[in-house]
């Protein structure tokens, strides 16, 4: 029932889940080091797809971390490094969906929902408050 391909994907996933990466890379410049840590946590390991390259134990992740370090030392900005990665691996390598039109629905969803929530709540409270106001001042319920 389980195809070979799936078994292999599973094995790869198990390798990912089994251990985590320890990355003692330490860049001399503390600002670069901070950017390195931030970037490596934001980039997805393409093999262990639910881990960042900072945490993934596989060789590919180590290679990608090395690329990040080299790009930082070449003076590239964070945006340039992300673009470099996306040019090679596509959007999937980013954990943070980019702010582009394609993802508009995703980033606006919470705000739209919040707006709807506020509207709905307002209407309900208005209706119910009117019902109470119409009553003679009676007893309330206890908390």
């Amino acid at each position, binding site marked *: 029932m389980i195809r070979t*391909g799936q078994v*292999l*994907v599973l094995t*790869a996933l198990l390798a990912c889940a089994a251990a985590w990466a320890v990355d003692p890379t330490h860049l001399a410049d503390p600002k670069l080091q901070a950017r390195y840590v931030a970037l490596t946590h934001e980039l997805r390991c*393409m*093999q262990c*797809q639910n881990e960042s390259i900072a945490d993934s134990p596989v*060789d*590919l992740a180590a*290679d*990608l971390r090395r*690329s990040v370090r080299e790009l930082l030392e070449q003076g590239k900005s964070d945006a340039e490094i992300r673009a470099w990665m*996306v*040019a*090679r*691996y*596509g959007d*999937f390598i980013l954990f943070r969906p980019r702010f582009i039109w394609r993802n508009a629905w995703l980033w606006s969803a919470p705000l739209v929902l919040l707006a709807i929530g506020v509207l709905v709540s307002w209407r309900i409270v208005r209706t119910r408050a009117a019902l109470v106001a119409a009553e003679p001042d009676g007893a309330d319920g206890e908390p």
Partner: protein
Amino acid sequence: MKRFLLPLGIFALVAVVLGVGIWRSPEKGVIVSPLLGKPAPQFSLPNLTDPAHPVRSADLRGRWYLFNVWGTWCVECRAEHAMLLNVQRSGRVALIGLNWRDNDAEALSWLQQLGNPYQTVAVDRSGREAIDWGVYAAPETFLVNPQGIVVYKHIGALTEEAWTREILPRLPPPVASKS
């Protein structure tokens, strides 16, 4: 009272999304390569079998080639090896290998034992070249046209199906055989 149908409507949409998800799930894990339609990376890498002549992308211009990423540590590569030999025998397209993060001696011994389907094998010991191609799991195979553009990428062992349905139709018709 239409608003009471709203939950059902939303659920229907969700069910459709999930259904599409299952329908397309055999393609799961197959990330569409951003290289498709773009120029293949330029490279100049050591040659596994002929250290005096590095493998250069410039030299490969002007003809179709399959760029196959493999390693002796890779189980699926072993599985696809027979297919690669078939590809070589067909003579339809040159097979260029990229030996990814491997050991030269072991790679040579592998090719000796199992047969060498490659016209040339480039060596990427550090893994940097593979990253430029967006490789994330061996084996991966890229089809590059004579202008140097990547036209197709296959992830996983190369199958007969991929060869006949995706690669062969893109190649120019075979040279007329000797008659």
